[in-house]
């Protein structure tokens, strides 16, 4: 009898673990680029090695971004970005920890395009701000393609721009997120 209970418990745990894994979608090749459109200069940078995980059961959503992985057209801009602005030696990661707040309205198992509302804590340069942004998910053949464009104010993250280059860097930076999530156990 005891053995039967043990076997049944093990079977249930295995099934539950499988179910939980099936609910998690990830990528390690997420793309984030940002764009600064200032009066005297346009600056663009991209990062193609962004980690992201989405639990479609709970809507929990997490991003991990290495600041030194952002690539700029000009080496000098990349240097200034890392050394003077985001101080990537002190704050190597940016993170977002939040939720798809309307996850219950999205059928992540059915092909289609869905509007998404994302809420959570965005940490850049060691400063955390709660943000609420719009995005979309396109579910296609078992993969989830997420996209969002939003703006962050550099001052909100205690990023100081010297007076001499104040016209070279926008006060608000456009962030574009593009992720293709696949089931974790694939």
């Amino acid at each position: 009898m005891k053995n039967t209970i043990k076997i049944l418990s093990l079977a249930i745990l295995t099934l539950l673990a499988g179910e939980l894994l099936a609910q998690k979608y990830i990528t390690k090749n997420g793309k984030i680029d940002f764009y600064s459109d200032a009066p005297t200069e346009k600056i663009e940078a991209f990062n193609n090695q962004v980690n992201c995980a989405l639990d479609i059961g709970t809507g929990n959503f997490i991003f991990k971004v290495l600041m030194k992985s952002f690539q700029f057209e000009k080496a000098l801009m990349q240097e200034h970005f890392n050394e003077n602005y985001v101080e990537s030696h002190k704050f190597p990661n940016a993170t977002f920890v939040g939720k798809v707040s309307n996850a219950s309205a999205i059928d992540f198992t059915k092909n289609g395009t869905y509007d998404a509302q994302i809420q959570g804590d965005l940490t850049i340069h060691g400063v955390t701000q709660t943000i609420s942004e719009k995005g979309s998910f396109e579910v296609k053949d078992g993969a989830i393609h997420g996209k969002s464009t939003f703006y962050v104010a550099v001052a909100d993250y205690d990023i100081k721009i010297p007076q001499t280059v104040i016209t070279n860097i926008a006060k608000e930076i456009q962030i574009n997120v593009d992720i293709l999530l696949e089931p974790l156990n694939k």
Partner: protein
Amino acid sequence: MKKWIKVLLVLAIIGLAGATYMYVFVYNKSHPDYANLKPDFETNAEALFVAFKNNPHDAASTYNGKIIRLSGKLNKVEKNEDQTIAYFILDEGMFGNEGVRISLLPEEANKLVPSDTGKSISIKGFCTGYNDSDVILEHGSLDY
């Protein structure tokens, strides 16, 4: 020619030379030639991964922003429209596999294909840090 005109001309030439220098060699200076940079550290993927996993802060101080040459048996080659990634898999975590991921320079991208999995390689890249799952190296190039 009057002396003050000569002085003005010399100053203008110096100013122009300075501005040209700043524009070409400072503002527009090129990115490092990563493939030909000498490595700051030579180790293996497991030692690098363990260093970050055990003490992320100290490892970041040591390795971030440095050129690292790694040797070892390749566990996976990932290819997508943007990049080729060489992957040394060393653990499992919330993002699935964990280890050291090296994105190759565009001119190196065709030097690895998925069937190279299991091959022993020596690879060099610029360490950008640890994202609590993988140690990331960018601008990778293969050494033979």
